[in-house]
């Protein structure tokens, strides 16, 4: 097979070269990070006062972990390492857990990120001849713009359509002979189920590839996508804290995702002890930025569970491959690509007086899309005996969840005592999606 490389020298560099680059860039990143109030304190406490203090990659373990909570507490400028004047872009999480997180990009940061994404796109065999329909949300979310810039660098013809509006998506695919999609796996399956409604056959579309990401999915889902649509689906991994998409991506062999190790140091740790695990062992993914200046993040605990393949890929790239995400160390749910914590739902519903003492979050599939049902017990003392009151309560809960957590939930009301009582490992969340 003819292997497409965006930057062959880096992508196929031997281990010693990659580690040399990592060490050099880690030192620079530390010096940069030390300019932010957060890392000045954190690294100071660990006895690191300059980037020169790092003599080997083993010294990485002297650096304390950074958590999502640290990002929240540092909002808005605690992790900023440059002057605002040098910042050309901001990406921010929607703050669904209460406090938002923010990442600043310098012009060089955007260029570096773009180059990594271009590398990802190119490694799947996509080229400037492709028409790229970017169906991820644009805006503060990194998924849309991240791939957009990378695709532009590759020279693809980009259709920056963003998410939603299924019928229009399908029509646009046909009208412009789209060949490559960027989409969540659940939405892609939904698109497939709607082709008939629009009166368009698969044969009328030119699609060949899809980059799928932003939500965990099984190998079975990928196989289903490939079979139903007769395309190649490539897994994508990234998180907004570490730039967004472009952290790891599958090559033409589709045997898990190469982590660009000249741009990130990837570690797999035991989430309980923090101990670094061997390749092949499953644990929490920890990532360190090596080429970001405005908001460098060190040893970030992603809460994603995965493992690194110990063996080399047939494509000749030396950058190790990360498995698909096997789970989470926390209870975060991903509902049609949107991150949702059960605690957020709890916080919102428990503010409503007519809601009783117990609730349950139930997740399943309706067609190919995720469906989230929030079951709540009603508070008997405020029950007036009217159906209209109950309808209004349902709408109130639904609207509250829609406006604050951006999820479209089905609301069910139940009588007091009807839902399973939480004891020990609470049965507050029931996720039935495990095997599609």
């Amino acid at each position, binding site marked *: 097979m003819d292997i497409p490389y965006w930057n062959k020298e880096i992508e196929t560099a031997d281990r010693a070269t990659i580690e040399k680059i990592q060490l050099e860039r880690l030192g620079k990143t530390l010096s940069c990070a030390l300019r932010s109030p957060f890392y000045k304190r954190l690294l100071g406490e660990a006895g690191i006062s300059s980037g020169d203090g790092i003599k080997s990659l083993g010294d990485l373990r002297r650096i304390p972990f950074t958590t999502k909570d640290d990002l929240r507490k540092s909002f808005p400028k605690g992790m900023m390492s440059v002057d605002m004047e040098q910042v050309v872009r901001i990406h921010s999480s929607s703050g669904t857990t209460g406090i938002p997180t923010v990442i600043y990009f310098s012009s060089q940061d955007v260029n570096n990120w773009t180059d990594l994404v271009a590398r990802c796109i190119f490694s799947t065999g996509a080229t400037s001849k492709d028409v790229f329909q970017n169906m991820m949300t644009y805006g503060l979310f990194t998924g849309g713009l991240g791939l957009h810039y990378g695709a532009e660098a590759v020279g693809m013809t980009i259709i920056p359509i963003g998410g939603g509006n299924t019928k229009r998506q399908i029509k646009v695919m046909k009208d412009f002979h789209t060949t490559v999609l960027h989409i969540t796996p659940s939405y892609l399956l939904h698109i497939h189920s709607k082709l008939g409604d629009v009166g368009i056959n698969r044969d009328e579309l030119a699609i060949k590839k899809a980059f799928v990401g932003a939500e965990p999915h099984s190998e079975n889902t990928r196989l289903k996508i490939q079979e139903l649509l007769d395309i190649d689906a490539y897994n994508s991994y990234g998180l907004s804290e570490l730039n967004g998409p472009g952290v790891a991506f599958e090559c033409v062999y589709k045997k898990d995702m190469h982590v660009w190790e000249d741009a990130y140091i990837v570690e797999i740790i035991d989430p309980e002890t923090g101990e670094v695990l061997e390749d092949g062992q499953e644990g929490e993914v920890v990532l360190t930025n090596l080429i970001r200046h405005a908001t460098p993040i060190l040893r970030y605990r992603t809460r994603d569970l995965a493992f690194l393949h110990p063996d080399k890929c047939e494509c000749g790239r030396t950058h190790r491959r990360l498995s698909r995400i096997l789970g989470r160390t926390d209870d975060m749910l991903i509902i049609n690509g949107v991150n949702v914590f059960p605690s957020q739902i709890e916080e919102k519903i428990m503010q409503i007086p007519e809601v009783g003492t117990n609730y349950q979050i139930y997740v399943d599939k309706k067609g190919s899309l995720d469906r989230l049902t929030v079951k709540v017990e*009603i508070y008997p003392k405020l*029950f007036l005996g*009217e*159906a209209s009151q109950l309808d209004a309560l349902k709408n109130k809960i639904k609207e509250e969840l829609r406006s604050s957590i951006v999820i479209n939930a089905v609301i069910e*009301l139940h*009588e007091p005592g*009807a839902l399973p009582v939480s004891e020990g490992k609470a049965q507050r969340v029931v996720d039935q999606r495990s095997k599609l």
Partner: protein
Amino acid sequence: MAKQLNIFVDNRAGRLKSISENLLKSDIDIRAFTIQDKGEYGLLKLLVNKPSEAYLALADLGCACALKDILAIYVPDQPGNFHKLTTALADHDINIIDAYGFVLQPHNKGVCCLEIENLAGTNAEDIVTSAGFSVLEDEELYKL
């Protein structure tokens, strides 16, 4: 004013039984009932001989229930009378939220129980009486 008991019941096997069992324990006699299906739950509406006792019996168990004022009206069991009643209320813009009826044997008398939107804020009782119907007082209703 007559009262009925509105009870929130999960829509699953055994829930009605648990309610009827507790009413039986309190020696409650059921005159009429209806269930409004709302998907995962239903609204059970009961006309009983001792509404307050029935309410307490269920509320003490943590049941979500409420006593609701209703208009219970004698309607002679002949064609046209129900229409006459609904016309009288409609003419005064009074909205019926829910209703059920039953016929008393052997008197050939119908009883129509109406849940009226914002009942306390209307003069529905006067309207019905003016239209020639008689409204059952609560004690009268419970003794049927």
